[in-house]
């Protein structure tokens, strides 16, 4: 097989004729990405060092290469930066804890219901992201059924509320990004040959040892992909914080949004965006290197 494939590849049958064809295939898509992704990022870098026009209107800025914008922006938004990374980390860990057994059950214990369960695990996310978040707000809110029940059972006091809190924000993020965790986990667990688990069992490993030494390491690509796909959108999210949080739970996304729209402070919004992107890219690179799964995408 391998010999055949390499022979065919060398013959150039399936690799196409050398030359222009691959570039022609790439051109339109790459042009689009360049225009609407790379150019804006370059432009953003320019905006981040601008300063207001002296005596100009709000929203008028001129390029002065003031790199101190970054320091100012960071100092002004330090708590929101910290919160973004703490909340996103918590939500990622919670999503991992919830998804792993679920993905495991579907991959190994569902028998002929596997496909149905797989559809069911994605199905909730066919309803709109915002509707789901609003639904949680109402379920956990004063008019919902959870708070009165918990109060009647004296689990929470009569003054305690569940919404408008850090807890609600983290819960909302955990819920909303769950399929990004479950699907990669399932994909990597599904690929595990059950015979490797049997072999481990034959060699007198108990269930826990088998999981620790065989199942979990083999599912590592799924864990890495899932945690990244959850952490990245969670760190930049501001919808959960806006709907389920309070003024003390704002995240970096809320700051960028309000700097842009309410205060029309483009340089600060730009430098914050840049720092957020840089921080995430650095974290992602370190994470992928350390977990040893370079072949991710």
């Amino acid at each position: 097989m391998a010999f055949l494939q390499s022979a065919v590849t060398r013959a150039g049958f399936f690799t196409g004729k050398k030359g222009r064809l691959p570039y022609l295939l790439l051109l339109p898509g790459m042009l689009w990405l360049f225009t609407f992704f790379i150019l804006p990022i370059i432009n953003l870098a320019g905006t981040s060092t601008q300063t207001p026009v002296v005596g100009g209107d709000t929203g008028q800025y001129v390029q002065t290469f003031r790199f101190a914008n970054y320091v100012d922006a960071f100092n002004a938004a330090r708590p929101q930066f910290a919160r973004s990374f703490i909340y996103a980390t918590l939500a990622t860990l919670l999503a991992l804890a919830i998804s792993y057994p679920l993905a495991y059950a579907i991959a190994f214990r569902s028998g002929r219901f596997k496909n149905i369960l797989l559809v069911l695990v994605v199905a909730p996310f066919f309803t709109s992201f915002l509707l789901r978040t609003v639904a949680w707000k109402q379920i956990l809110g004063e008019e919902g059924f959870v708070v009165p029940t918990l109060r009647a059972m004296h689990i929470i006091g009569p003054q305690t509320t569940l919404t408008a809190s850090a807890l609600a924000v983290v819960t909302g993020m955990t819920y909303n990004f769950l399929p990004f965790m479950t699907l990669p986990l399932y994909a990597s667990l599904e690929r595990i040959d059950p015979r490797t688990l049997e072999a481990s069992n034959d060699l007198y490993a108990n269930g826990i040892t088998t999981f620790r030494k065989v199942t979990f390491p083999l599912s590592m690509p799924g864990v890495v992909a899932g945690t990244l796909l959850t952490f990245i959108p969670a760190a930049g999210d501001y919808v959960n914080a806006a709907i389920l949080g309070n003024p003390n739970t704002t995240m970096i996304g809320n700051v960028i949004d309000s700097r842009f729209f309410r205060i029309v402070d483009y340089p600060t919004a730009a430098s914050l965006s840049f720092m957020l992107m840089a921080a995430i890219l650095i974290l992602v690179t370190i994470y992928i290197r350390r977990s040893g799964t370079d072949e991710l995408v």
Partner: protein
Amino acid sequence: MSTIPIPTLPVSKRISRWFGRNLIRIYAVLGFTYLFIPVIYTIAFSFNNSGKSNLVWRGFTFNNWMNPCGAPDVCSALGNSLKIGLIATTVATILGTLIAFAIGRHRFRGRATTNLLIFLPMATPEVVLGSSLLAMFLAFRINPGFWPTVAAHVMFCISFVVVTVKARIASLDPRLEQAAMDLYANERETFRRVTLPLVMPGIAGAALLAFSLSFDDFIITNFNSGTMNTFPKFVYTSAARGIPAQANVIGSSMFLIALVIVVAGQLVNRKKAR
């Protein structure tokens, strides 16, 4: 008569053993319950005789389903979302599939750079994608609105299309194409009759994914759509006052339609597999 006493475990041990054996199943049931609570809530409250605010249960009615455009703006917002979703999905699926074939079927200089450029938009938070695009549109004096939003949606959908289609191409059995060539099909015929039909399910899946990403997007849309309303924007702005039951009707129908498409796709696959 003497019977050999069967050693029985104490009840507590039996219960704990049952739990030990079924732990993963119990957990799965709890997990699915958690997943479906907001969905059941959304569907239930689409039948609420709610009046203005849809916060408290006021009795069962079909009125919202009979009159899904009853609330102001909800259907125009939905229409915009559908239009953006369809255009963006078509463009992103074509561009993404071309890239996926280039990466999956060709060796060329700059492959690593291409892969990086595909990965980067997925690793960039939406708030950065959205704000940087708006800043550029403003710099070029382009007003945010329908087409800027479409351009943005195509941009963030391309990467997901590439990844999905690429995975499908990689999973193809090369012997099928070799067989076609052995049967004197030329490259073009092989592609049209063998390769493309085999990759088609991947392309269809990618298109579905792109549409749902586009339809559901709020953050990037909110930056680039100006005063144009979309369904997620409608829900976001009315969340403070309580969203009308018609929004639940639309959310519930999207859920049911998507479910039908996915189940139908599964059934078609199963038939083909036979």
